[in-house]
């Protein structure tokens, strides 16, 4: 193993001096250097080991919906700093600049195939995709709009922190708030597909992300309740090597399927076809 590792290292070291910066990206899993243009063409999945790089909200929407069909909802919902939490406003500002997003969530209406859907995505790049009041509010409105217009709902989680610390108890309350909205969507007998991407943790997993009629996950995604830094302090027992991954959750019956990024949209289309067609008549 060590020899292979060194070879890979040598390979990337050889390659790098010959090209300008920014054309290569190193795979965090197999550590091979990947030509960025090829990586993008492959939907940001490593050619060598299948590692799924995180996607931005914009990339995720482009991946799953028909070109030009997405129109954003509630874009003006903006974070304030209700607790006066040290450093929060600066962090918001930094990540707005870094991502081009207003907050960690994008919601809207779009078409998948020929079906109108309500879609919401959290973006890990923005404060680790944590659920603050804005994320909770926009996800809730997205669910409510889906219920009103009788639309299938697709929510994609990518969040490291769960409920955001910076808005304290108000972040925590986004869990019951989103769950209550989903209760009504559920009672209206509408479809909800939850897609768990890297990472789907804590308060997000323990609320809307776990409530899908069908729950899909990308390979290798971190999925779990208690984050690493917290559980390291706790004695949690002997962890299996794949603890809190998509594979672990599939084995334990918590998700329906692990789906390669290339297959995500075709899988959604099959689910939509199965659920949205008129009742079968024999």
């Amino acid at each position, binding site marked *: 193993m060590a020899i292979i590792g060194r070879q890979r290292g040598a390979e990337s070291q050889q390659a790098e001096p010959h090209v300008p910066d920014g054309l290569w990206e190193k795979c965090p899993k197999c550590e091979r250097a990947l030509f960025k243009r090829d990586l993008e063409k492959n939907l940001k999945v490593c050619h060598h080991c299948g590692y799924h790089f995180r996607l931005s*909200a914009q990339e995720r*929407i482009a991946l799953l919906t028909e070109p030009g069909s997405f129109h*954003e909802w509630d*874009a*003006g*919902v*903006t*974070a*304030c700093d*209700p*607790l006066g*939490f*040290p450093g929060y406003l600066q962090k918001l500002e930094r990540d*707005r600049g870094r991502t*081009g*997003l*207003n907050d960690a969530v*994008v919601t809207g209406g779009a078409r998948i195939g020929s079906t109108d859907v309500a879609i919401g995505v959290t973006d890990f790049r923005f404060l680790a995709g944590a659920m603050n*009041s804005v994320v909770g*509010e926009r996800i809730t409105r997205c669910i409510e709009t889906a219920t009103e217009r009788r639309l299938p709902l697709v929510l994609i989680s990518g969040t490291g*922190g*769960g*409920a955001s*610390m910076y808005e*304290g*108890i*108000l*972040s*925590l*309350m*986004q*869990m*019951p708030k989103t*769950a*209550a*909205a*989903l*209760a009504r969507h559920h009672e209206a007998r509408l479809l909800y597909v939850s897609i768990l991407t890297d990472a789907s943790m804590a308060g997000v*997993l*323990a*609320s809307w*992300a*776990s*409530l899908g009629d069908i729950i899909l996950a990308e390979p290798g995604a971190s999925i*779990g*309740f208690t*984050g690493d*830094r*917290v*559980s390291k*302090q*706790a*004695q*949690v*027992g*002997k962890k299996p090597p794949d*603890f809190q991954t998509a594979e*672990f959750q599939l084995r*334990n019956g*918590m998700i329906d399927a692990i789906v390669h990024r290339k297959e995500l949209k075709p899988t959604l289309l099959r689910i939509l076809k199965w659920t949205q067609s008129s009742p079968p008549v024999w």
Partner: protein
Amino acid sequence: MDPKQSTGVVTMRKSILDFERQIEQLEKQIEELRQHAAQHNLDLGEEIARLQSEHERLMHEIFGRLTAWDKVQLARHPRRPQTLDYIRLIFDDFLELHGDRTFADDPAMVGGLALLDNKPVMVFGQQKGRDARERAKRNFGSARPEGYRKALRLMKLAEKFGRPVISFVDTPAADCSVGAEERGISEAIARNMREMAVLKVPIVIAVIGEGGSGGAVGIGLGDRVLMLENAIYSVIPPEGCAAILWRDPSKAEEAAEALKLTAEDSLRFDVVDEIIPEPLGGAHRDPELVALRLKEALVKHLAELSRLPTSEMLDLRYARFRKLGAFLEIPEDQAAVV
């Protein structure tokens, strides 16, 4: 979210428990003087009065103006009344029911049939445990998926017979063991909230000690949320917040302040509807009094809720949580639109 960490083992500055010792010494002295005076027929009134006024001064000095961190310690106080204490003090004919009918019984979550003012109700909540043995058995009040599923089973039973539900929240956090993860702790919490949002009987929540993040909201959605004066309700324990933000758990005191986790904060943010006052020094100084106040509040709210038609009650319950959060709405042309 380590339950062991939240039992006050982490040593910071002089804690509320240290000050309490001072007060207890004084109380002991007063009691001894009284006995001595009675036995020997002495008039020690002056001395006793002096100690009593010193006692009163100390009580106000220590407990009159509590910081957020002081309240964290009172909320976790080893002698603080727990769910089973309130069940014993408030209800009659408690019949404990066990098990989630799927995997196990979770002793960290207790519940069952009870009478409140002679009326049938369902009551449950997390139980932390008193001595070392009970604490271990009850996993320090950190419920496992089975605990949340047992609570849900009891709620469904209450709904079937049209009985109101009372939920006592007192947990450092939900269990974070490998087993809890394997059996879907996230799903259990999420599903409870979804079901509680539409359960067709009144639900009154009372946060009596620690309202520890997901572990708390997993039994925390209802028509009314009451909170004891020195209870806390937080998205993360202050130690965990300090560890993540500043990589330094000893900054828990600052984190407690920043997190706005007191009952007053929760009331200001509409997270709770009413604060139940505690005696000076905390609920453990007079559990009967706190139980009485809690009972009066429960009865009052259940009476109000019982007068509402079910659909209206559910709409109000939805609206109650729907409005929680704080954000601005700026014109969309000023926002970053995707």
